[in-house]
């Protein structure tokens, strides 16, 4: 009764073939990541030391450390997040919870998707025109961070909107039926249950912001500065630009050839560390809320 027919056997062969094929593709996918990490750790690992992290670059960047760039990236990312997270979440809440579905909101949604597709160099030029020149922020952390914020807004908006819409409509209706206003429903039910998805968006944004080079090149980041930034009006060094400069702009002598790998490793490490914190926070939140 349960003997395999020809059809069963052929189905099983196909099933096995497909499974192996997909497994191979998955492995293929991780290979570049593994290679990058291996090269960086092998070549950049030995470069990293306490001194490398906490001292200024010396001798035309062929020696010394990356401290100003490190601090600069922290500045740029923090200010960019301060600008884009509240703005992005507010816009997403409006689009998901308040806005009627009409041509106007559909146009806005389309614009947001298109904004995500604009090349970063175009954002850079926009930043120069808008923040550096028009608002007269000059080349500064403020101008660079706002440029980064505009560039990463779609990530926050889309992630937030998706996670808001993942909250079942029945929850909202149950609340409205009790006479709750939209805002009461959002604050008590919708936001607490979408916060982990929103955080995922912020994580993505942090990675993107920390790594971008083009948008900050013309708006606030400098290749070398002898001082640390003291406020948002100052220029700053940044990890991504520092890496770019070391790799392409400075002839590195033999003994310093591995320095850029060290910078890259630290940059990746920073992003991973920030992600790890957000992921930990997210898991903690998920543990608290369930339906």
């Amino acid at each position: 009764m349960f003997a395999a027919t020809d059809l069963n056997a052929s189905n099983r062969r196909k099933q096995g073939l497909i499974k192996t094929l997909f497994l191979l593709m998955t492995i293929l996918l991780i290979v570049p990541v593994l290679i990058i990490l291996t090269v960086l750790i092998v070549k950049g690992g030995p470069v990293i030391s306490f001194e490398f992290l906490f001292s200024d670059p010396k001798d035309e960047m062929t020696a010394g450390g990356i401290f100003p760039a490190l601090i600069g990236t922290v500045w740029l990312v923090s200010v960019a997040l301060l600008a884009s997270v509240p703005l992005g979440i507010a816009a997403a809440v409006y689009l998901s919870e308040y806005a009627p579905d009409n041509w106007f909101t559909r146009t806005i949604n389309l614009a947001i998707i298109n904004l995500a597709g604009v090349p970063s160099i175009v954002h850079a030029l926009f930043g120069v025109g808008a923040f550096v020149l028009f608002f007269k922020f000059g080349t500064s952390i403020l101008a660079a961070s706002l440029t980064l914020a505009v560039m990463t807004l779609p990530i926050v908006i889309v992630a937030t909107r998706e996670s808001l819409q993942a909250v079942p409509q029945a929850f909202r209706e149950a609340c409205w039926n009790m006479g709750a206003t939209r805002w009461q429903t959002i604050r008590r039910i919708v936001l607490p249950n979408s916060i982990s998805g929103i955080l995922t968006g912020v994580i993505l944004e942090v990675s993107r912001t920390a790594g971008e080079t083009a948008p900050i090149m013309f708006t606030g980041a400098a290749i070398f500065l002898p001082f640390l930034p003291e406020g948002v009006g100052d220029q700053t060094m940044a990890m991504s630009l520092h890496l770019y400069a070391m790799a392409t702009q400075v002839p590195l002598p033999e003994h310093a050839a591995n320095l850029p790998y060290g910078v890259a490793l630290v940059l990746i490490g920073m992003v991973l560390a920030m992600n790890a914190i957000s992921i930990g926070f997210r898991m903690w939140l998920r543990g608290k809320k369930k339906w």
Partner: protein
Amino acid sequence: MVDVGSPASVASDVKVAVRDLTIRYGSHVALRDVTLDIRENEIFGIIGPANSGKTSFLRALNRMDTFTTEMAVDGSIEFAGHDINKIKNLYALRKRIGVVFPLPVGLPLSIYDNVALAPRLNGVRKRSELDVIVERCLQRAALWDEVKDRLKSLGSLLSGGQQQRLTIARALSQDPDLLLLDEFSIAVDPVTTMRIEDVLKELKQEVTIVLVTNLVQQARRLADRTAFFLMSECVEIAETEAYFDGRVQDPRSRDYVEGRFG
């Protein structure tokens, strides 16, 4: 439609007056030309097969048409003498109407917070007051004994039947004037259903109840008067007993309660 078959009621006696109510979803007509009165402190049953417009009727009473752009309501509904289609402050209207739908919705809050939500929305802050409300409502919904030791655990993780009773407790916590129950017993075991039915009979002293049910016998046990909806129309409105002793006018009503179709 058959005549409402009820003696001309005194105006003050009427809690909800529905006139020529038609409900559409896009081009689909869910309910057509319904005219009926729901009296103060009665349990008003609505029976009928699936897709006959029962749930749409309840949705219209709570102005849930504002939740979606698709649902359109024509005709008038007066609640306690006010045309609800003209009320600006819908929040105040909905606070006076408790709703329970067939699919239980345990909000992703603790059991306590689920029941305390409506009082909190109304500005009750004192823990002691909230405690009293939560216990009373959970008692009435026949859930207290099962959850009294874990009020802090999530309401959305309760079993289906428990979530349904939690939903009922939440509706009661609004201290409503009008309670709309749509197949409240669908996920609840028979013994608990009987306990809740007993509570509903008591509640009748304070609240007007509209009870949509698939169970003809449930309508018989609870409802003072019952309407029979069939294919988007209100076929009959009569004292509930009239359905069972053959006094109803439309033969389809008799056939339905006797299980000959539907």
